[in-house]
């Protein structure tokens, strides 16, 4: 007599706390802005439409006007897309290359592991904003350079996390079985180890994404990131900084937008039903 096991288990539900739901809502909102935001912009972001500069929130300009009289809502919708897409590409590059190297290090072991780990540990010991400053000083600032710099800066941290995960999975019996079967290293990496570390790697991806957003906005805020006429959220704060003395929404709103992106992602990954992640940079 066999009891159908599946029927005795309670149905699986995806439970998420209130703070997690707030985080999820913020993340979904910003993804939507990245996808369709510029199409919803009421004015062209580069056109001077208002009569007063650094104006207050009005019916015509919901988030006020900037230091030249351009519509702030339109500029934030476009700037948000810059911030999120640049950070996303950079984080993806960092995590993808980190996972590949980490899997190789775990499967090959020996000197491959030792050399990779030593070299990347040296890279990790340069503070991120400082590394960005040195690269921008040497190469100037353009979007491809910003993406690559951010990817190089956050790759070692992602490598450290992914390597720890991969080494754990690599010690499991089913990996030994696959190797005994005569599967190649590439197959073991891709089909045996990777599927068993996807969720923690995705959590780590969210964390790195926050760091990249903060780094890129910091660089843009210093005037060394995205260059005019393009503007990401950090540049928007910088160019309207003169409005700070009378509390113009043009300087508060883009800064608040960055905060809502990063806090949203952080709240979401803090409340995911996985074990807690290390917040080491």
């Amino acid at each position, binding site marked *: 007599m066999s009891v159908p096991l599946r029927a005795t288990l309670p149905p699986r539900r995806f439970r998420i706390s209130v703070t997690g739901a707030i985080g999820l809502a913020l993340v979904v909102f910003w993804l939507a802005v990245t996808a369709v935001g510029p199409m919803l912009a009421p004015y062209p972001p580069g056109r001077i439409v208002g009569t007063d500069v650094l104006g207050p929130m009005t019916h015509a300009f919901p988030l006020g006007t900037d230091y030249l009289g351009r519509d702030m809502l339109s500029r934030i919708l476009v700037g948000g897309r810059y911030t999120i897409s640049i950070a996303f590409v950079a984080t993806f590059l960092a995590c993808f290359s980190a996972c590949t190297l980490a899997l190789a290090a775990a499967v090959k072991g020996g000197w491959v592991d030792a050399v990779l780990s030593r070299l990347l*540990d*040296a890279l990790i010991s340069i503070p991120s904003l400082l590394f960005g400053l*040195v690269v921008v*000083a040497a190469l100037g600032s353009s979007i491809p350079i910003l993406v690559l710099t951010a990817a190089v800066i956050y790759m070692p941290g992602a490598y450290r996390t992914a390597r720890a995960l991969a080494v754990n999975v690599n010690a499991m019996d089913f990996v030994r079985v696959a190797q005994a079967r005569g599967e190649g290293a590439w197959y073991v990496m891709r089909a045996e180890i990777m599927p068993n570390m996807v969720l923690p790697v995705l959590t780590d991806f969210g964390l790195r994404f926050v760091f990249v957003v*903060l780094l890129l906005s910091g660089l843009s805020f210093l005037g060394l990131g995205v260059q005019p006429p393009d503007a990401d959220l950090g540049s928007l704060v910088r160019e309207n900084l003169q409005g700070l003395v009378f509390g113009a929404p043009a300087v508060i709103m883009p800064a608040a937008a960055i905060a809502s992106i*990063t806090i949203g992602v952080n709240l979401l990954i803090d409340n995911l039903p996985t074990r807690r992640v290390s917040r080491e940079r």
Partner: protein
Amino acid sequence: MNSLVLRLIATRVAVSLLTLLIVSAIVFGATELLPGDVAQAVLGQGATPDAVTALRQAMHLDQPAWLRYVSWLHGLLTGNPGLSLVNHLPVAGLIGGRLPNSLVLAAITTAFSVPLALAIGITTAVWRGSLYDRIASTLTVSAVSVPEFLVATLAVLIFAVNLHWLPALSSRSGVHGLFGLVRVYAMPVVTLSFVVIAQMARMTRAALVNTLGSSYVEMALLKGARPWRIVLRHALPNALGPIVNAVALSLSFLLGGVIIVETIFNYPGLAKLMVDAVATRDMPLVQSCAMLFCLAYLLLVMLADLAAILSNPRLRYR
């Protein structure tokens, strides 16, 4: 102290020195990527080829890169890292004028944030799960995930614009007495402390919660020890190593924050000097500032690791 601990410490110091060497190679290598010729860039477009060649020789640009790297490294170690490309003043003098300002800022921030962060970290760990803990945890997560310049702009908005308590810019000229000093330093210190305190409180809480969950603490609870005695006598001594580790690591976040804070408040420190040097692409100055920052960072991380080694009793009595 026994031979095992000494060996661990020696290994850790050696690794730090090796890392510093690799970092110096990366920083120097970044300059090699510079498109175009430094001599050409210094002299401008109107320079004759003869003048460019002469300057190349004077700046030793005709030598191979590794030779220049070695002489640059030698210059750094002997306190002579070359001349600024922009105003032709010695880099050492430029840095010497700014370094004390940054150190004062860092010292005040440390003195202000460490006690506060430890208090928050320890109390949230003791009352974990309470409303206070949940509010504090949400606040600290938010604080570590907002950019420093948001904190700085909000601080200016509240204290300088709305309340008129403090000046929006920092300048040390014309400061009279203790009150004047507080007025100048309050805003940069508050902004810097904000992120550092959040980071430190989170790590302290995690370290102490870990210890409070162990079985010997449960034993102490079962034998009837008072809650504060458990925390102060039983848990804290064992959590001290991780906590010192957390303090040192969190202070390394100062280095990133100080770059933003000195720029926004126009504070005449080392980070402001470096940001200005990046804007004018004054590479000798950028290199030296970057090395100083990396040195400070590595020292703090090494301190954190040494604290972890020294506080581990299993290593002490072997």
